[in-house]
């Protein structure tokens, strides 16, 4: 009797391919003989769009590259344009960027945790993580008017100052959140079925991770201490001393743990940034500035440091001399790079995005081969792939 191979399409319309990834698997029973990832179902021509728009017009689109962590893409594009046009960013704006990015990292990881557990068949953690994510999203909504596509950063700073009481709410969230992580750990980390499903599954070795250009938590779970925030700091990250959690196993469980550790680390970073932000809470700053009214650059209330931008950029007038720059930002998924080549006009000659999910999708077949079908879903979930970022 000839045993035939089962050629199975997993995706694009599948509950757990995290969007529209398509995997074509050759199954032998439940075992994966071969698997191939096919991408491109969400291609929107993000890079080409930059060429027909001026810098200011392109900025809102950038958020859509990775809809779960929009701030990072906006940040890398802003840093790139600021580097090209030599625009100075005031300290307070940098701190606001810092806080929003770290919060965004947490919200992205929370969503990942929920969907990862959903992939493993546990439905409830999703609702618990979304409960906490909702707090962050609400914070973002009050800050930017948007829940996902923030369009908040601008060249030279951020668009508007923090609303009154915002920092207090963030501080409260930071105090509350570690106990919530403990709650997840209670529900998930000690669960024997979860351990069975994730320990030793989808082991990504150090060498393979480096070969495939894996970055972010996935790389750190494989034992490589590389974090753009630490190794090639941008913005105000060099002013902060923080731990980069590294685990050596490289399996799904390590990838799960590293993200929990990262959330805890982000909380600490946010707390320290709130304590150090120039000008402090905006309600007090506003009063102090009114009382002072000196407008001198060295004043602690009216000075450069406490502004959110130094001068408004004219979108049509922003003509950047011919040059090129490559900016790396550590997004919640890894190294998110933005290459911008300017040509003297007000729109870019070429914008190239380097996204972490793309490499993670590439390594997926390597990890899945020889495993069980159920493992494919677990590995796919643990790699934290976001499809719009892969296809751009």
């Amino acid at each position, binding site marked *: 009797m000839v045993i035939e191979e*089962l050629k*199975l399409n997993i995706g694009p319309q*599948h*509950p*757990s391919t995290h969007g529209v990834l398509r995997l074509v698997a050759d*199954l032998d*029973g*439940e075992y994966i003989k071969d698997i191939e990832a096919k991408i491109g179902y969400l291609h929107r021509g993000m890079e080409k769009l930059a060429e027909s728009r001026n810098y200011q017009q392109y900025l809102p689109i950038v958020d859509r590259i990775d809809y779960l962590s929009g701030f990072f893409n906006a940040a890398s594009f802003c840093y790139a344009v600021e580097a090209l046009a030599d625009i100075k960013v005031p300290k307070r704006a940098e701190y606001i960027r810092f806080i929003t990015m770290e919060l965004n990292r947490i919200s992205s990881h929370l969503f990942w945790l929920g969907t990862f*557990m*959903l*992939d*493993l*068949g*546990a*439905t*409830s953690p*999703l*609702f*618990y993580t979304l*409960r906490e994510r909702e707090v962050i999203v609400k914070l973002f909504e009050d800050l930017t008017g948007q829940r996902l596509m923030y369009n908040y950063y601008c060249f030279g700073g951020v668009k508007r100052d923090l609303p009154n009481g915002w920092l207090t709410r963030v501080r409260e969230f930071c105090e509350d959140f570690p106990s919530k992580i403990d709650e997840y750990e209670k*529900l998930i980390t000690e*669960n024997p*079925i*979860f351990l*069975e*499903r994730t320990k030793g599954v989808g082991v990504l070795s150090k060498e393979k991770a480096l070969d495939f250009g894996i970055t972010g938590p996935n790389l750190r779970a494989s034992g490589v201490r590389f974090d753009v925030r630490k190794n090639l700091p941008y913005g105000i990250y060099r002013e902060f001393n923080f731990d980069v959690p590294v685990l050596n196993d490289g399996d799904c469980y390590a990838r799960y743990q590293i993200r929990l550790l990262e959330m805890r680390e982000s909380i600490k970073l946010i707390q320290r940034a709130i304590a150090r932000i120039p000008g402090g809470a905006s309600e007090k700053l506003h009063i102090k500035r009114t009382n002072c009214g000196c407008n001198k650059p060295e004043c602690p209330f009216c000075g450069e440091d406490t502004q959110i931008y130094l001068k408004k950029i004219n979108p049509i007038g922003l003509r950047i001399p011919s040059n090129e720059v490559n900016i790396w930002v550590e997004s919640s998924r890894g190294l998110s790079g933005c290459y911008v080549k300017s040509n003297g006009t007000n729109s870019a000659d070429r914008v190239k995005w380097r996204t972490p999910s793309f490499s993670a999708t590439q390594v997926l077949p390597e990890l899945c081969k020889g495993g*069980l*079908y*159920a*493992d494919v*879903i677990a590995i796919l979930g643990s790699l934290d792939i976001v499809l719009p970022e892969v296809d751009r």
Partner: protein
Amino acid sequence: MIKALIAKLFSYFSLPHILVGFVWVVFKFAVIAAIMVVVVLMLVLMERRVLAVLTIRKGPNRVGPNGLLQTIADAIKLLFKEDIVPTGADRVLFTLAPVLFFAPVLVVYGLIPFAEGRAGIDSSCSLLLLLAVSSVGILGLVSAGWASNNKYSMLGSMRSVAQGISYELPLVIAALGVVLLSGSMSLNEIVLAQKNILDWYILPSGIGFFIFLTCTLAELNRCPFDLPEAESELVGGYNTEYSGMKFALFFLAEYALLFAYSAVIATLFFGGYTSPFGVYAMGFIPYLKKIVFVEQFFWLMLKTFVIVYLIMWIRATLPRLRADQLMSFSWKFLLPLSFLNLILLALLKYYLG
């Protein structure tokens, strides 16, 4: 009472008396089918509400008062939904599969004693019959998966077979422990042997209860053993291609089985329809003495719904096992454990009672 009434009616209309038994069975079947349908309507709503509470949501709350009519609305919708048979599917088997899955469920209901001496089918080996009948349903799953001509369905049905053969054994042997303790294969007698809370078989056979509950989850394809219909892996599993009433039959049977197995657990380990205090409140009141079965039915329902709640709670807590882990868990852990349980119970029974 009702049987006598039927007999009276027959003699009144001078109908052949031989048919009395038949009409009696039809009557019992109608009652049990009604119980099943009502129970399923309640269970579906309960499951959605319980899961909603456990996952900080509200659950259905729009249809009817407080969302109570939600399942009825769903049932009507499924009844009026177009029935699609995919091209390439085996038409006959495709239609037969839900029937094959559904039919044993009602027989299982017939075997459960809902009150003293009040089971649809009186049999001295009802437990054995129940175990035998309840495993017929797997055939329905397999034929559903095969007939759909869909790869996901096929994988799902293959998994359900693997699960069925692995978890049938510990289940049967755990039940064997109860048979050993009570010395009877009749569910009615098993219940009567545990008339108050101290006689419940959960006490000597705690391991047996654990094994039985675990295997029940597997037989029911419920979390953490919901591999045959793992929605994050196999989309819909064996019922991916089903729609309309055929899907409804699968759905109905699944929830009906959930209740049936919970009732069996209550019967085997928690004294079934008997009161935990050994006496019935209705037994003290002269006129209600005759309908003490109502109270017995209430006790069974109470115990069953506690177990149903436990199963739903498990679903909200645990992730899903993997196919190979599922198999080795059964064969390397549950099966030896169930034999150990049997030996312990035999020794206990021999030396103590």
